[in-house]
């Protein structure tokens, strides 16, 4: 399964996002996993526990938020929950559905221990883009 390589990528992105906070002060990582993300939450958790030490994140915990699969009908703009992977608009019968949530594996946020808040003023967004 490919969860290990994705989790290694996650851990490296956690370190980047947290900078200049050192790894040992990163307490918790929040991720979201959707039904069409292609990853299994249990295997993500297992890979996280196995891989975190290699990134000096031994004390870091993982929180997985499981999202539902949502979409929008391109024919009538109806928003809908996609149940059992039936990409079908209940309102107008169209099969042209754009997925709006639940097809990805996202790093949502981190919780870091703060010793001196003046040290960490850099915007996370600036570092990642």
């Amino acid at each position, binding site marked *: 399964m*490919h969860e290990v390589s994705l989790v290694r*990528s996650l851990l490296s992105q956690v370190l980047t996002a947290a900078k200049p906070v050192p790894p040992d002060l990163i307490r918790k990582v929040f991720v979201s996993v959707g039904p069409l993300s292609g990853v299994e939450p249990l295997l993500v958790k297992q890979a996280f526990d196995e891989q975190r030490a290699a990134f000096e994140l031994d004390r870091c915990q993982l929180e997985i938020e499981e999202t539902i699969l949502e979409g929008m009908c391109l024919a009538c703009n109806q928003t809908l929950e996609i149940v059992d992977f039936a990409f079908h608009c209940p309102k107008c019968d169209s099969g042209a559905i754009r997925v709006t949530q639940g097809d990805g594996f996202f790093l949502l946020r981190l*919780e870091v221990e703060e010793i001196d*808040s003046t040290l960490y003023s850099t915007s996370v967004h600036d570092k990642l883009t």
Partner: protein
Amino acid sequence: MTNNIRTVEVNRDIASDPKRDAAALRAEFAQQGTLVINLVASPGAGKTSLLEATAKHWAGSRRMAVLVGDIATNRDAERLAPYTPVRQLTTGGACHLELPLVKRGLAELPQANYEFLFIENIGNLVCPASHDLAEHVRVVVLSTTEGDDKPGKYPKMFRTSQAMVISKLDLLPYVPFVVESAIADARRIQGNLETMQISALKGSGITDWCEWLDAQRVKMLRQFEGGI
């Protein structure tokens, strides 16, 4: 002393770097006029047979090349070598291809202005669905021996494909496979899915498949010129 806990908002797709790299390479391919096809299927569905039949059908009239992925051995590359430039990609155990491996294989191919580059993925209907290989089209091959219930069981693969090729049609009289059921199941997941039916062994449907590929390349070129 108790330290405060601060939240750092990130909201980032974990695959955003590989997705960006794939999009850049896809644009490069389009500029060169190369249509890239990511061929996915379970093991033994007939991906290599389809490519063999494609190369034989075109018989040098199109400039094509193949990167073929497997866990081990050069068997598929050896099989295709008489008909097309080909390089084997072996993953040593990984269940899917990723872009760096594709780039390495690409560098090893004889350099030519290819019109079609086929990437035959590892036989697996799960993990390859999550990895963009810079393809313009993803084609899933479903063989009649696998059963018509497979699309619903592997939704991401069928959802992320633009076409489904039903293979081994010559075996239809011997297996409980209903073509219409497989198509209906797949279209429930991907309403715009194009479907084709082939028998690589008998040669049926290969002309339609090759014409579809030509049309996809024209569409890709038009979109690139239109700046879409």
